[in-house]
Every structure is written in C-alpha cells, then in structure tokens.
C-alpha cells in the first residue's frame, strides 16, 4: 500500500486544502485522515530536514505530526499522557551516574513524583509527573539533549 512518504504527502494535502476527512480501504488496510486541525502547522519532512540536534525519533519534524494525531492515538492507545520537557537541557534518568534511574518502564508513579532531571546552565531541574499512573515509555536516552516541549515519558493514567 502507501509508503510513509506518500502517506505524509497525503496528510499534507488534506491539511493544506482543509478537507474534512479522507478514508482509504484496500486489502484489509484502512486509512483515515481526519483533517480537523488539532493545533498548529503542517509538517516538515524529507531530505532537507536540518541535521537536528536531537537524535530521538520524536523531535522537530515529528512533533508537529504527533500533535495532530494525538486525538486518534489517545483513543487507540488508551489515553496516554505525555510528560514533556519544560526546559532546554540534558536529560538524566538518575540523580547521578551511579544511582538507579528514578523510574523504569512499568513503574507506578504518583502525581508529583520525580521522573528525571534536565540539566541546564549547571542547574539540575527535577521533572515531576503531573499525573498518577504507569510509565509506558521513556523517550530520550540518558544524557541526551532535549528541547522545550520534547516528549520525555508516556504514562497511562491510573
């Protein structure tokens, strides 16, 4: 069926032309693009993407797309909540190199519990969970640089 690049192009067209929705069904595959704008902006893609700072799968181009698909995702994935970085800096999973990570995938966290540290200008900023639930995914690697708004954790609310 459609390749990713083609699908992206399709989404772009849907968004640019502000079409309500597009559905494609073929060989048991169903694609539905809901054109209602979730938030901002069309996405950037392809070969021209700047050698972005961040090597995580999410970052600059990605995020825009994600914002768009969140509504769908929540339905599909059972209402995940994403904890994003409130500052620019370096992501640490543990308070120091010898210590165990604050949280692992599968851990139960309570609201206000420290999930990680983001270091900026020599300051260690503790990032707390704003929801109680189970950690489903940790997005950045340890010691990876993170941008403002970048996804750090996915949590399934309790």
């Amino acid at each position: 069926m459609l390749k990713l690049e083609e699908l992206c192009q399709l989404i772009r067209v849907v968004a640019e032309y502000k079409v309500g929705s597009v559905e494609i069904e073929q060989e048991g595959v169903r694609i539905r693009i809901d054109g209602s704008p979730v938030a901002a902006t069309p996405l950037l893609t392809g070969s021209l993407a700047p050698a972005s700072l961040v090597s995580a799968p999410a970052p600059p181009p990605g995020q825009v797309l994600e914002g768009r698909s969140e509504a769908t995702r929540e339905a599909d994935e059972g209402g995940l909540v994403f904890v994003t970085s409130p500052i620019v800096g370096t992501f640490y999973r543990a308070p120091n190199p010898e210590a165990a990570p604050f949280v692992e995938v599968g851990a139960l966290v309570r609201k206000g519990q420290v999930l990680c540290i983001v270091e900026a200008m020599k300051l260690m900023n503790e990032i707390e969970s704003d929801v109680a639930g189970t950690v489903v995914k940790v997005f950045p690697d340890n010691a990876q640089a993170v941008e403002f708004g970048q996804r750090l954790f996915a949590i399934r609310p309790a």
Partner: protein
Amino acid sequence: MLSKVLIANRGEIALRVIAACREAGLATVAVHSEADRDSLHVRLADQAVCIGPASARASYLNIASVIAAAEITGADAVHPGYGFLAENAHFAEVVQECGLTWIGPPPGAIKQMGDKAQARRTAVTSGVPILPGSANPLTSREEAVALAAEIGFPVILKASAGGGGKGMRVVADARALLHAFETARMEAERAFGNGDLYLEKYLDHPRHLEVQILADAYGRMIALGERECSIQRRHQKLVEESPSTVVDEALRQQMCAAAVAAARAVGFTSAGTVEFLYQDGQFYFMEMNTRIQVEHPVTEAVTGVDIVLEQLRIAAGLPLGPRRRPALRGHAIELRINAEDPVTFAPSAGTVTELGFPVGPGVRIDSHLYRGYRVPPHYDSLIAKVIVWGRDRPEAVRRARRALDTFLIGGVKTSIPFHRRILEEPDFLAGRLSTRFLDRLLKPEAGT
C-alpha cells in the same frame, strides 16, 4: 576562532545571519519558539532547538533557554540579530561568562549607550553636537527665557516626568514662552504629580540620519556613510535610503567623524549605528544602536561591504575587511514590508496563500516567507525587506516601484500599497524629507 554560531533570533534576520555564517564557513544553530517550528531559519540552520512556547518572553527573550540551547549543541558563539536580546547588556555578559563569544559590542559599550542620558554626556565629552537644551529642570520663567534666547527659538517645553504630550509646548518667541510656562507646569503637575519642566531646541522638520560604524578589536574603526531614515510612522522606519539627498561629501565627512568619535568614547567594537537629527545644516546626536540594524542592506548596496560578515570577522578576532571609508556608489532604497493593513496599520496575521518574489536587476529580497507560511501574531510584523539599487536615485525609485508592483503576496494584508503611495509622493521624489513626512501623508487618510 569561532566554529558554531547560535542565532538568538527569528525571521529574516535569522536567515541573514545564517547566510553570513555559511559564507564564513561556520556551522549554525537556530533557536525557535513553538510558533516558529515551520520557519525557514529552522530548516536552514545545521541544528535547531525549540526553546519555548510562542510568547517571546518565554522563548526568544528567555536567556536561560538560549544559553542552554548553546550548551547542548556545543555552539561557541551567539549572534543576537536585532530586537529581542540584541541590546541586553546582561545577556551579553552571561554569554561571555559561559565561555561563549558574543557577536556584538562589549557589554560595557552596550550599557553606556543604552542609558540615553549617559549617551548624551558621552557625545558632549567627545565633541559631538547634541540638541541644545536645559541640563536640569528649569527653576523659573526667567531662566527659561534666558536659555531659550541663548539656544534660539523655537524651543519646546517638556515635562521631566512626562510623555504623551502632557506639559509639552512648542513656543516661537519669549512672549509665548512666558505665557506657556505656568500652564505647562500645572499640566505636568496634574498629569504626573511633578511639575518639573525642561527645555530643548525645537526642530520642526528634522531628518533622521544615521551613520553605520564598523570597528575591530585592533582599534580600526570606519564609518560606512549615512542612511536617511526620516520616513517613519510612530518611530517605526518604513523606508530607508543611502546616500541621503541632503548630505554632501563635506557633511558626510563631519557626520562620520562625529559618529566615530562617539563610538570610540565607549570602546565600541562590532557593528553599530549612530543616529542623528538633522535640520538646516546642523546635525545633533540622538543615540547609538549597538547592534545590526534592519536597514543595514542599503549601506551594503552602496558600499559592497557585507556588514554581518564583518561582525563575524570581528568577533573571530580578525581585522576589519575594508581599510577605509568606502565611497557610496549609486543609490539604494529599502522598503520594509509589514504584514499589516495598509490603511489602518493593524497587524495582519494569517497564512500566505500566494507568493511571487520580484525578479530583475537591482533588487534584493530578504524574507523568510514561503507560500503556506503562517505569519504568527506573536512577533513583529516585518515579513520582507525589498532593497533596490540604481545608478542614481531616480533609477532606484523606478526599480523600487517595479519591485513592489511585481511582489505578489496573497492571504495577508501588507504595507505594499502604502509603500507604493510613498514612492509617488512629490516630496519623496524631490528628496524633501523629514520625520514629519508621513504626518502629512496620513492626515487625509483619516478622513476616508
């Protein structure tokens, strides 16, 4: 030496700095707010970091975020562009304290020129003329009349605490001054709880002229001639040109010497601009901008010097490229195209649904627009600079008209029709300019 420059800005100036960095062989880091994710500067830089939400205060003005972005990308220098943090001496200091190179003047020079009263004192001690007036609040009508006689009428009374026209009076002679003094004092007293007045020479048709300065770390400082920036609306420049129709080579030499003297007095390096008021053959120091200016391209067009590239060279510890003040060749005009209603001047955010840039000789477009770009409502409304060059002023004007007539922008309102009108004004064509130029042009508009 520099190797990777973080550009702490957005829009066309971010593109302009990235271009200069490319030419200089430097890697670049763009920073951007969430509203600017799809901006060209993000695409064009080698790396990009989102530093905050749309609000400028939380992103482009957020010093900690900008510095953190430099840290995580390994940038070793910061170019501030114009606006935002460009004249924030504290930011410049933080940049330097973090071991990064500040691509701008020494923080001390920014501070000294940033305090307007101190800047005027600096001008005076450097022998640069300022607008004559009272240094301290006037103590009596009699003192006011004596001082006005010394300065020469007309003069203007202003409230020390004031603004918005309250306590302000333009007077043409001693009799009128005597008459106005108490009324103005009462008005000021009522408006501001402070009746202190001061007095200054009044210019009824001043021109805004400015001199571009470049200075390296080795004591070489040159002026790149003047720019005429009299066409302003509420202190926002709309049209700039070089040379000025009123400046001959003798005056140019005087103004350049004065600008250099003022800049030297604060140990200035990098690129900056000394602004003057000019009327009836006299020029008066107003202030110095310690950064690259929006209108720098007109000077580039008539001198051939790449001013941003020179900033990079200077910051890298290289000597200035040009060895002496270059002659001004031909004539250049810049038109600042804003996303705004050409009649009401209300900002016009929205999506650019159609776009065609002008082609042909003598036209340079510095713009971050593309078809589909959404002009965000959060920042200033400049969307493109049209810079034209001609062998003489009439040719530059013709090319400017051609450029505007062939600049297609759909989806947002722009100032193009307003600029187009300016280019037909007899006073503009005759080079009869003053900061009052637009007052006359806008007055009939109010009635329609």
